[in-house]
């Protein structure tokens, strides 16, 4: 492999890193970056101000060896760098069926990234913490849902960074100047047009994961605008929309006129151009997409799981209210009921605890998992075959990653189903 490139204009700083003047770790990171800049057809590299590192997830020894190679070369990040979920809930993994070898290797991978001067957020929703980028800032973010949120809701500028490259950007403070880093590539080229959606439905939390699920395959990886939304969505709803669209598709930027910062109007989102494709979506399409997220719609459940992306403080508030409403009566797991598991970050858990929002969950016998999620750590025993969730991302990936059947539902349906140990439906505004 060549160290530099004939086509990318590298700065004196880039060339100094390539030459090893800043040490072996930046040299390796810049060699990979320069090669990727060439592959992407970049003319130059640009400075980034922050990074979010998805490479933290343990999926096998290769990722661990890469992390430990960088760490052994003395790698340090040059910009504030938050960490995505790991492969382990370090303090509670023994409560689950996580093999000790997995735990040991995941923990090693965590220590390798810790050693680089990173911020140990261990969350896939870093945008709901204190390390949130600002509008217009150039950043290098990994984690597909976080990329969609950073670009769309905040208006920060990031490409979809894959594992292994995010950390190279963080170590060098540089990124190829391509794609969504550049203003001209941020205009919507496709429009999803909502038609005849009742306000009550558009205000419901479970509208957004379903909308995102439809958006993914339509948008492919082009910036897309959503027109005709009759309400202003909340932050957690936009988060669910992005996570769903980045699972069923490769959506890294969506615009909602009047809501997201780069789209005061639909014409602004499109830059005054005609869209290359328009998709009309009404109630029938939304109902069909909602059904598509479910592979198991009746009978017993093994687990109800919430929190992909990681549960926010606001979501804990909603869950606490639902649990308080009906009291702790339930069918217990040992009586044929099911587990209720919520995945979140350490920081949000601590805030929710101080606000008293975890008490109803503890009283119910629900369980918390931090730093990771049910998809990223092998915590579910082979007997967990039937899941229910309000997350389109969990619903999308569980069949492939866990081999489980899945039911998608609203938070209220999930809570009631957890109480009874079987799928309970209450279609509400979907009727």
């Amino acid at each position, binding site marked *: *492999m060549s160290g530099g490139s004939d086509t990318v204009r590298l700065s004196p700083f880039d060339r100094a890193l390539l030459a090893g003047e800043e040490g072996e770790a930046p040299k*390796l990171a810049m*060699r*990979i970056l320069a*090669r*990727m800049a060439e*592959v*992407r*057809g970049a003319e130059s590299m640009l400075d980034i101000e922050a990074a979010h590192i*998805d*490479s933290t*997830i343990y*999926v*096998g*020894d*290769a*990722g661990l*060896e*890469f992390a430990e*190679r960088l760490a052994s070369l003395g790698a340090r990040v040059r910009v504030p760098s938050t960490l995505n979920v790991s492969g382990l809930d370090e303090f509670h993994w023994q409560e689950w069926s996580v093999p000790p070898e997995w735990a040991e290797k995941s923990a090693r991978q965590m220590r390798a990234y810790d050693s680089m001067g990173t911020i140990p957020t261990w969350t896939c929703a870093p945008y709901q913490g204190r390390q949130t980028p600002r509008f217009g800032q150039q950043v290098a973010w*990994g*984690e*597909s849902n976080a*990329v969609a949120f950073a670009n769309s809701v905040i208006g920060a500028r990031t*490409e*979809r*960074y*894959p*594992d*292994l*490259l*995010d950390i190279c950007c963080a170590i060098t403070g540089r990124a190829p100047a391509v794609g969504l880093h550049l203003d001209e590539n941020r205009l919507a080229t496709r429009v999803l047009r909502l038609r005849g959606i009742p306000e009550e439905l558009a205000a419901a939390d479970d509208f957004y994961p379903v909308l995102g699920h439809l958006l*993914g395959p339509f948008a*492919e*990886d082009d910036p897309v605008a959503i027109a005709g939304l009759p309400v202003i969505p909340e932050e957690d709803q936009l988060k669910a929309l992005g996570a769903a669209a*980045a*699972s*069923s*598709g*490769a959506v890294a930027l969506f615009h909602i006129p009047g809501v997201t910062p780069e789209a005061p109007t639909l014409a602004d989102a499109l830059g005054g151009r005609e869209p290359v494709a328009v998709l009309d979506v009404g109630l029938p399409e939304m109902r069909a997409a909602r059904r598509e997220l479910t*592979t198991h719609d009746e009978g017993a459940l093994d687990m109800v799981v919430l929190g992909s992306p990681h549960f926010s403080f606001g979501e804990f508030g909603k869950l606490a209210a639902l649990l308080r409403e009906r009291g702790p009566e339930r069918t217990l797991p040992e009586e044929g009921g099911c587990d209720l598991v919520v995945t979140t970050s350490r920081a949000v858990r601590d805030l929710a605890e101080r606000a008293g929002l975890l008490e109803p969950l503890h009283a119910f016998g629900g369980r918390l998992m931090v730093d990771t999620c049910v*998809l990223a750590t092998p915590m579910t025993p082979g007997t967990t075959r039937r899941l229910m969730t309000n997350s389109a991302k969990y619903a*999308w*990936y569980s*069949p*492939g*990653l866990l081999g489980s059947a899945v039911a998608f539902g609203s938070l209220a349906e999930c809570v009631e189903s957890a109480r009874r140990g079987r799928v309970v439906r209450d279609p509400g505004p979907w009727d």
Partner: protein
Amino acid sequence: MDRLRGQVIVAGTASGAVLYATQPLSFWGGYDAASGRITDTHHPLAGETAAGAALVLPATRGSSTTTAVLLEAIRRETAPAALITRGVDAFLALACVVGQEMYGRSPALVCVSEDDFRRLADWPRLEVADRALIRVDG
């Protein structure tokens, strides 16, 4: 002889049975690095063994972890022999670049035009050689 040229991202000599799909694939939740099988239940190639094959996909989708999963497959030698995409897919390209860096090996990775991508649909096997894709019958 059917032969077409593409943009060679990672050169190499490789041949394999063609696994062709027009849907993108996330390797995280979609590719089992232990067995080299495609496991994404949403994908038409679910259940197929891609290890050693010529995997023809328009692109990846979704998860950032696709790269780490392909790198793990390269480490375990359960990766496809060749990857053919429609246009450049940076996620697959990165895994191949880091695979060379870490393990000194990588699938051959070639990007083709939209028209050429469609032509590959009925190729039973292909060979990557001399910066070209060559159809192999039987």
